[in-house]
């Protein structure tokens, strides 16, 4: 059975992971085809249709606001659809950036050892000494908010986890016969690392990445909530929650409930996916659970 077939069979038996993947597909679809899916322009303000409750129509009775409108009369559903882009894009790209950096440094530390190992691991210890969100806040205050800065800060914040695991795994693989064989055949260090070791250490890293996307999306939402994320003109779930604070005391619940639910469901899906991947890719770990 091919690995993919095996994965699909395993998925069919588990109902939560299946649900999580379906949900992620829906959110991914919203992110990719936002302009086609969203009922209105997410930034279109409509003073007459301010603070409409969910399911209410505008005065002419022609447009229905499924999830209501905000204080500027912008359609909440449309903003939610566009917000999926920010969360998914930032989550995926930041993990890709942090993951590649971490795996690269971790493999070098584990393979070569010596001073490179000491240097990289000391750097990792220093970074771990910072509560991460504070480090992110400090850099974003200085560099200024924005999507690129956000991705860089969140990505660099994640490299340590990958580096530690990649290092440990590389040390284990370094002594194996197949590495010896590759060396005897005259393959260079870069070739051995990329073609021999990397494929063999990828499984635990993929598991970590899935959980990591979840926590990066949470961090992105928190930073956007603090006004350090994407600019206010770009609709984002964290930003919508920040705006909802102003109307909270007057009981406009829908402005807080919908974006929060969107974040929760996305993060939950990635967490469930991570759990399933761990059981599937690394059965030794699931023996305990």
């Amino acid at each position, binding site marked *: 059975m091919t690995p993919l077939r095996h994965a699909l069979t395993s998925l069919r038996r588990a109902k939560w992971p299946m649900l999580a993947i379906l949900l992620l597909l829906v959110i991914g679809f919203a992110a990719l085809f936002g302009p086609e899916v969203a009922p209105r322009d997410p930034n279109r303000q409509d003073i007459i249709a301010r603070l409409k409750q969910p399911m209410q129509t505008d005065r002419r009775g022609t447009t229905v606001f499924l999830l209501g409108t905000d204080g500027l009369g912008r359609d909440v559903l449309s903003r939610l659809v566009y917000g999926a882009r920010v969360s998914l894009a930032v989550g995926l790209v930041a993990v890709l950036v942090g993951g590649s950096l971490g795996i690269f440094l971790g493999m070098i530390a584990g393979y070569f050892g010596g001073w490179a190992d000491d240097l990289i691991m000391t*750097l990792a210890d220093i970074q771990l000494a910072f509560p991460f969100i504070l480090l992110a806040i400090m*850099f974003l205050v200085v560099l200024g908010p924005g999507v690129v800065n956000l991705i860089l800060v969140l990505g660099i914040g994640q490299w340590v986890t990958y580096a530690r695991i990649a290092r440990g795994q590389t040390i284990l693989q370094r002594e194996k016969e197949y590495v010896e064989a590759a060396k005897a055949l005259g393959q260079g260090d870069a070739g051995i690392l990329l073609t021999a070791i990397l494929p063999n250490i990828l499984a635990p890293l993929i598991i970590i990445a899935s959980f990591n996307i979840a926590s990066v999306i949470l961090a992105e939402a928190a930073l956007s909530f603090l006004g350090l994320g994407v600019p206010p003109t770009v609709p984002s779930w964290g930003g919508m929650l920040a705006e909802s604070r102003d109307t909270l005391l007057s009981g406009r619940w829908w402005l807080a409930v919908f974006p929060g639910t969107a974040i929760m469901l996305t993060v939950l899906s990635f967490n469930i996916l991570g759990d399933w991947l761990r059981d599937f890719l690394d059965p030794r770990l699931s023996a305990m659970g």
Partner: protein
Amino acid sequence: MLGYLTRRLLQCGLVILGVTVITFCALHMGGDPTYLYVSERASEEEIVATRAKLGFDQPLPVQYGRFLSGLLQGDLGTSLTYHTPALGVVLQRFPATLELTLCAMLMAISIAVPAGVLAAFHRGRPLDGGIMLVAMFGQSIPSFWLGIMLILTVGLGLRWLPISGRVPLLDPLFAGQFMTALDNFPKAIPYLLMPSMTIALFSLARTARLVRSSMLEVLSQDYVRTARSKGLSEFRVVVHHALRNAWLPVITMLGLEFGFLLSGVVVVETIFSWPGVGRLVFNAINHRDIPLVQAAVIVFSVMFVGLNLAVDVIYARLDPRIRLT
């Protein structure tokens, strides 16, 4: 033990030195920091004078040396909004934050440990599934959203708990006024409940899952079977034999969790208008008061490093298998 402590202390010193380098670099990454200190309409002479006064015209290594020597004397620069030493401003707010964090920690442990143990004992049964499902949700809810929802439902809807404000507990305690602190205690609890629950939920969920898997591992050990076959009550088996060993990985996590809780306060304090360091940082962000943000980051990091050192030492005392050399 002494050798180990010295090495760990040196390591901590190195880490804190690294923290100062990164914090220092952060200030200079945004360009010439002089412009933070002068008004937008300052003349060229004013800018040059301020730059010279604050030493920003010196080479970077010299500036870092000054930054470091200031740090050793407890000088972390002057807050741009308060116009007083930044460290003082941060430390003044610190008891409020510590209060919140400790309360959240207490909440997380006192719920997570029994929940994790229960789940482990009912492994594979509905109770286990239920607890783990709740834990999964707990790890996926953004803390600030939970705060907003609590304000909407418990605060504004049911009117059970106040949605903002604080009655000081630790401030009078640190000032030596025990009676005031004791007096304030019952009044302070309602204000503490919602914000600490908001901060605690994520750690609570993660710790419950950790306790469960740690417990499962211990329960399959031979000494637990021996204890059971001796005819000990299930309670004694759990508390005296299993829990004692299942604690170890949990304690290591708690040091990290405390740092995590500490950094969660920035958002949560803002939502509940809690007068601590978190809200201070939030306001400092809005005013681009970088020295104040720096001071807060350094105070939190030092606290975090010290705490993890303490956890390592406690860990070694609890687990005699670990020899500290």
